[in-house]
């Protein structure tokens, strides 16, 4: 049997609905026989008709409603149809959910699922990676699972966490990534994972680019370089200890992320390593992000816009010569 990243997300939600009657799923097209734009909730409304609910196209009100329900003891899962549209709900997520515990001492246990990242032909408004925006604001946990196993266990963990969780699931991984079976439990939330051990250079990344980084590492191993790949798993909290430990082994850092280049997760990784582990570095750290333009439609432009295996290998090769 094999299970995809997308099926893992569906299975996690099925288990959550089955085991916890506080859980409900709220979002556009998630209910009925349709089961979501990507089918991440397919069949769930049949089993749980009162807890898998279609909504109007009202991202602000969808999240506001989830917040209200969470304050009254429910554990809502919001599906944004695309991460890009969560910009409409920014106010509720950042200013309502993100401030609530700090202001009132009452946390808001909502999980917001963001189908994130680029796929060919999706263009500027169906391709965005929003993790850096959410990580910037206080009061939120930001998850970026890169594997089928993490997609499953981290979603279950997200719903158990008392604080708001932004769960960034990568659309490119939905069908590409497969596992034999689902684990019952994963690493603790907030802990990074060494996806590949190495000695010459550390690539710190997350989400779909973990796989590009691993492919680049394979390529470089044929040139006798051993690259270590750290999968952050959660962008916030950021597992600085695992990153620093890796850099202490390799002396070189390449941070790779799919969001836009100004600020963000990769900048944060480099800032922390430079600040806390400057003495560990044998060369100036390097970062790769998407280009500082909206995300293009045409596949030729799109594949040049986001970090690729080729670009990662090229930048790593240059850094190894430093």
């Amino acid at each position, binding site marked *: 049997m094999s299970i995809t990243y997308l099926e893992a997300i569906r299975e996690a939600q099925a288990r959550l609905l089955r085991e916890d009657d506080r859980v409900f799923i709220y979002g556009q097209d998630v209910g009925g026989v349709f089961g979501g734009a990507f089918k991440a909730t397919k069949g769930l409304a049949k089993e749980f008709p009162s807890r898998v609910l279609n909504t109007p196209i009202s991202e*602000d009100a969808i999240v*506001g409603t989830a917040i*209200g329900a969470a304050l009254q*003891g429910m554990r809502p899962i919001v599906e944004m149809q695309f991460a890009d549209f969560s910009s409409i709900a920014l106010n509720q997520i950042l200013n309502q959910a993100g401030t609530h515990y700090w*202001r009132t*001492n009452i946390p808001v246990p909502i999980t917001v699922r963001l189908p994130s990242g680029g796929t060919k032909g999706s263009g500027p408004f169906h391709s965005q990676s929003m993790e850096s925006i959410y990580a910037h604001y206080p009061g939120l946990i930001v998850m970026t699972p890169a594997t089928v196993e993490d997609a499953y266990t981290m979603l279950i963990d997200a719903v158990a966490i008392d*604080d708001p969780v932004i769960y960034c699931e990568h659309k490119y991984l939905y069908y590409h990534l497969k596992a034999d079976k689902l684990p019952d439990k994963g690493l603790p939330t907030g802990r990074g994972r060494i996806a590949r051990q190495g000695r010459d250079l550390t690539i710190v990344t997350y989400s779909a680019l973990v796989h590009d980084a691993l492919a680049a590492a394979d390529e470089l191993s044929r040139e006798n370089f051993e690259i270590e790949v750290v999968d952050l798993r959660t962008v916030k909290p950021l597992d600085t200890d695992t990153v620093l430990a890796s850099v202490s082994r390799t002396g070189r850092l390449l941070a790779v992320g799919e969001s836009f280049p100004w600020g963000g997760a990769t900048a944060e990784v480099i800032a922390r390593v430079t600040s806390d582990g400057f003495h560990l570095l044998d060369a100036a750290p390097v970062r790769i992000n998407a280009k500082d333009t909206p995300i293009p439609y045409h596949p030729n432009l799109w594949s040049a816009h986001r970090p690729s295996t080729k670009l990662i290998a090229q930048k790593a090769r240059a850094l190894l010569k430093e």
Partner: protein
Amino acid sequence: MLQTAQRGKKSPSKKAAPKPEVHEKFLEAFRWMLLSRTLEEKLVSLYRGGHITGGVYIGKGQEAVSVACGLFLQKGDIFAPLIRDQAGRSAFGEPLVDVARTYLGSRQGPMRGRDGNIHRGKPGEGQLAMISHLGAMVSVVVGSLMAKRFRSEENFVGLSCIGEGGMQTGSFHEGMNIAAVEQVPLVIVATNNHYAYSTPNDREFACSDLVERAVGYGFEGYSIDGTDLDMCLEVIGSAVQRARAGRPPQLVVASVLRLSGHGEHDDASYVTEEIKRQPFAQDCVKLAEKNIVHLQLVDAATLQSWKDDAKKQVDEAIAIAQQEAAPEGDKEDWRAISTSELLDQRE
């Protein structure tokens, strides 16, 4: 079906004699209005004396509408008051000392110096803590009511306050629509105080009466004269009752004039003399008191004792908060999440 109440006439002498229990509710409401007005006058004087940081936002002229919002709610209901709802907050059960502690930044207040002035609440007791982004509380009330329905609770209602300014936000529109889609027992009380900060109605919306929007959303709608306490109690009280009984969501639009600036930093010099002469520009507290005297509901000595009592309560609450410790930066627990092991340690 859209039902629109008649706008009220001002003369108390033309009213039919209300039943004794109506008088009782009227007097109860009046005392909350009096308390609110007394408290807010005190807050203004503290602000002018430099004792309150940030700002003071009062509900002068809106007390009749506001008190009716709080007065018909009960334990288990959800209330989302807004900027000018001191009377409603008090009637719903907010202790005066919570107000004083929040304005003065006491660590013992519900917001512990982390948020101030009207941005306060006790969500655990059904009083939501508003954020400044207008319209955003509507859907939060909707979700709270859905949770109660999920748990098969009965006989609950939610009430969310808004102004005509906040009614023009996208968030408010989404909230109204989703409330009707979910058919939750919700009452929206919208107070048109004729200015969004300094912007008059003609630059805020272009429909002839905001209550006309009710039918478009699938709400039942009512218009009231917000200076008439009797009408506020009757119409808002019945809207609460109807929502509680399972009727569609209810919209009540009240007409008043904001008898203050947007906040106390604002001299409201943009309010025209013409609008100040409109019937809706009358002071609802004065009108209610006139009514009490006219109908001889209580004698002058009782009325005076109520005023003295309000002053005493306010002074006590302020005195308590003034003696309490302010928060300190180096002793603060700087955590925005409740799950300690998930803190991002770097600052």
